[in-house]
C-alpha cells in the first residue's frame, strides 16, 4: 500500500482485472523516452501527452504497455490504446490511474486487457460493467470473430450483424 506521506501518488501496483492468461511482466514500466534508449525493457508507460505511434517501431520487444489516465476525464488514452492494437500490438495493454467502474467497458473495447486502478474497484460493480452491453454499434479494438457468447457479441458491430454475419 502507498503510505500517505508520499508526495508522488504512484497508485496501486495491483492489477485487479486481467483478461490474459500469459505471465505478467515482472519489472516496472519505464517512460517512453527511457524505453527507446533501453534495449532490455519490455514494459513502457504512456502518458496522455505521449504519442503512441512512437512505440510502433518497437512493438516486437514490448510485453506490456501501461496507459496512464491521470484524470478519468482525459480520454487520450483511449486513442493510444486503439492505435497500438491497430498497429498489431498483441501484448498486455493495461489501463492505470484514475480508472473507474464506468469507463471499464469502453476501455475494454479500445483494447485494454488489464486494469490497475489507483483506487480498488468494487468487484461486483466491475463485473456488471464489463457485461453491460449486449451489442456494439461501431468497430473498435475488440472486434473479432463473431460469437454471441463473447461480451458485446464479440465486438462485432450491429451493422455487420444486420447484413449477414451473425
Amino acid at each position, binding site marked *: 500500500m502507498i503510505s500517505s506521506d508520499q508526495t508522488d501518488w504512484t497508485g496501486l501496483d495491483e492489477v485487479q482485472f486481467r483478461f490474459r492468461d500469459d505471465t505478467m511482466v515482472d519489472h516496472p514500466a519505464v517512460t517512453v523516452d527511457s524505453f527507446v534508449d533501453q534495449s532490455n525493457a519490455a514494459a513502457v508507460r504512456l502518458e496522455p501527452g505521449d504519442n503512441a505511434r512512437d512505440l510502433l517501431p518497437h512493438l516486437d520487444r514490448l510485453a506490456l504497455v501501461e496507459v496512464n489516465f491521470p484524470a478519468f476525464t482525459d480520454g*487520450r488514452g483511449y*486513442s493510444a490504446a486503439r492505435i497500438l492494437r491497430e498497429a498489431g500490438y498483441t501484448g498486455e495493454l493495461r489501463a492505470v490511474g484514475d480508472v473507474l467502474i464506468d469507463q471499464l467497458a469502453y476501455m475494454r473495447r479500445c483494447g485494454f486487457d488489464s486494469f490497475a486502478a489507483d483506487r480498488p474497484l468494487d468487484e461486483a460493480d466491475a463485473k456488471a460493467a464489463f457485461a453491460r452491453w449486449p451489442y456494439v*454499434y*461501431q468497430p473498435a479494438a475488440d472486434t473479432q470473430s463473431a460469437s454471441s457468447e463473447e461480451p458485446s457479441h464479440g465486438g462485432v458491430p450491429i451493422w455487420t450483424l444486420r447484413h449477414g454475419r451473425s
Partner: protein
Amino acid sequence: MYKYDQYDQAMVDARVEEFRDQTRRRLEGKLTEDQFKPLRLMNGLYLQLHAYMLRVAVPYGTLDSRQMHALADIADKYDRGYGHFTTRQNIQYNWIKLEDAPDILADLAKVEMHAIQTSGNCIRNISSDQFAGAAADEVTDPRPYAELLRQWSSFHPEFVALPRKFKIAVIASETDRAAMKLHDIGIRIVRNDVGELGAQFYVGGGMGRTPMIAPLIRDFVPLDQLITYSEACLRVYNRYGRRDNKFKARIKILVHEMGADEYRRQVDEEFAHLLGQGIEPPFAELERIRTYFEDPAFKDRLSDTVDRSDPDFALWVDRNCHAHKQAGYVSATISLKPVGGIPGDASAAQMHLMAELAREYSFDECRVTHAQNIVLPHVEKARLYALWQVLEENGLGTANLDQVGDIIACPGLDYCSLANARSIPLAQKISQRFAANGKGDTLGELKLKISGCINACGHHHAGHIGILGVDRKGRENYQLLLGGSEAEDTSLGKITGPGFDEDGVVDAVEKAADIYLARREDGERFLDTYRRIGMEPFKEALYGQA
C-alpha cells in the same frame, strides 16, 4: 422515419440499466458528485438553478405523434406540465428529480427515445434541416446520413472523454437551414460532376466565447467513406485538442491554432490509416436506413392554390409555409413564439395537440427546428385552412416565422446556472414592443437571437440582431450585435458599442429597426441593409453623434 430494430432497442435498454445502476451508486455514496457528473451529463441530466434539467434527444429533429405524446406525458408525470424545445432540436424539462431520471429514460426507451449523449464531452445530437425530405432544393434527404452518424457516435468507446462537447450538423442543400458552418463538424451532402453523392466536411465552427466559421476541410468524401473520415476527424481532435483550458478546448481552437491546412493534413494521414482498418459500415446499412426515409404516400394532382380570402390566414400561409418538392404540399411551421410568450416552450396540452396534428395532417411526422419551432413537413395546401384554425385556437398560429417576433432565446438566468442575465423577459418585451408599434409587420425577415451568457446557446453571434446578456457589476446588462447570419452566407455579428439595461436594449432594437426602415432599398432584408450601409448609421442612432 427511422424505426428501431431489436439491436437499437437492446442498446437503449442497456443504457437505461447502466444509468439506473449509476444513479443507485451515487445515491448510495459509491460515486462522488465529481465522478457522477460526467455520467449523468452523458444522459442529458444537468443540475440547474431550480432542479435537475433533462435534455431529451430528438435525433435530427424528427419525431412521430407517438413520441410527441410521450414527451407530453413525461411533462405531466415527472415535470410541471411543459417542455422547452432547444436550438439543437432537442427538448428540455426543467423540474426533474434525480430519483425519477432512470424511470423517465425507461419511459423514453419504450417509444424509441433517449437522452444519450445530449450533454457531456462527447458527440452530441446530430442536427439537420427541419425541411429535410420535403424541401425542393435538397439533393437528397440528409437524415439517413445523420442516422448513420448517430449510430456510429453512440457509445463510441474512443470518444467518450473528448476535450469538450462535439456538435455535428448534416444538410443536403446549398441553402443552409441548420447553421452548418457554426458546428464542430458541418456536413453538406452534394453531387459531384458525375452525379455521385458525397460529403463536404466543414470542421472547426462554433459560437461561444470565440465564435468561428468552419473552414472547408474536405470538399468531397465519398459516401462509402463517411464514417471513416468522421472517425479520423474525431481521433485527431481527441489526441490533440486542448485539455488545459476549458474555454479553449473545442475543435475550433485546434483548427484555428494549428491552421486548417495542418489539421487537414493530419486528418488525411489518419484517414489513410483508418481506411486500412475497414471500419466503414457495409453500404447495405446506409441503404437499409434510407428505406425509412422514402417519401410518404403523397397524393398526385393536388390543387396548388390556397383560398386567401381570410387575410390572417393568408398572412400565415405567406410567412409560415415553406415550398415543398411535391405539388400541392407545403411544410408548415407551428410557431412557439406567441407575442409575449416564452420562446420554444410548449405545454403538455399543446404537445398532445401537435402530436395529433402531425398524425392527422403530416403523415404522422413533425420536426423540431433549431429556431425552437415545430414543423409539420408535409401538409396538403387544401387542408391548410383547417389546420391553421386549430393552431389559432390553441395559441400556436402566430404568423411570425423568421420575423422579429420569432425570437430565439436561451432559457437564461431564469433557469440556467451558467447564465449572467435573463433572456426570456427580454424576448417577451421585444415581441410585445414590435406587436404594439406595428413595425413587426413591415420589417420582413429579421432573425433576432438572445443568449443569457457567452456560451451562446441562443446563437446570438448568428443573429441579424443578436443580444448577449452579461453581468455588469452584479446587474444584468445587454450587448447588442448586428449582422450575424446562420445561413450559407454565414457571418458573425459585431458589437455595436456599450451595453444597455433591459429597457435600454429593447429601445436599441427598435432604433436599429428604424434605421433599417429608413434606409432599406429594393426588397433588402435588415441583414442586407446592414451589410450595405455598415455599422455607423446604427451606432449614431444608438449612441448619438460621435
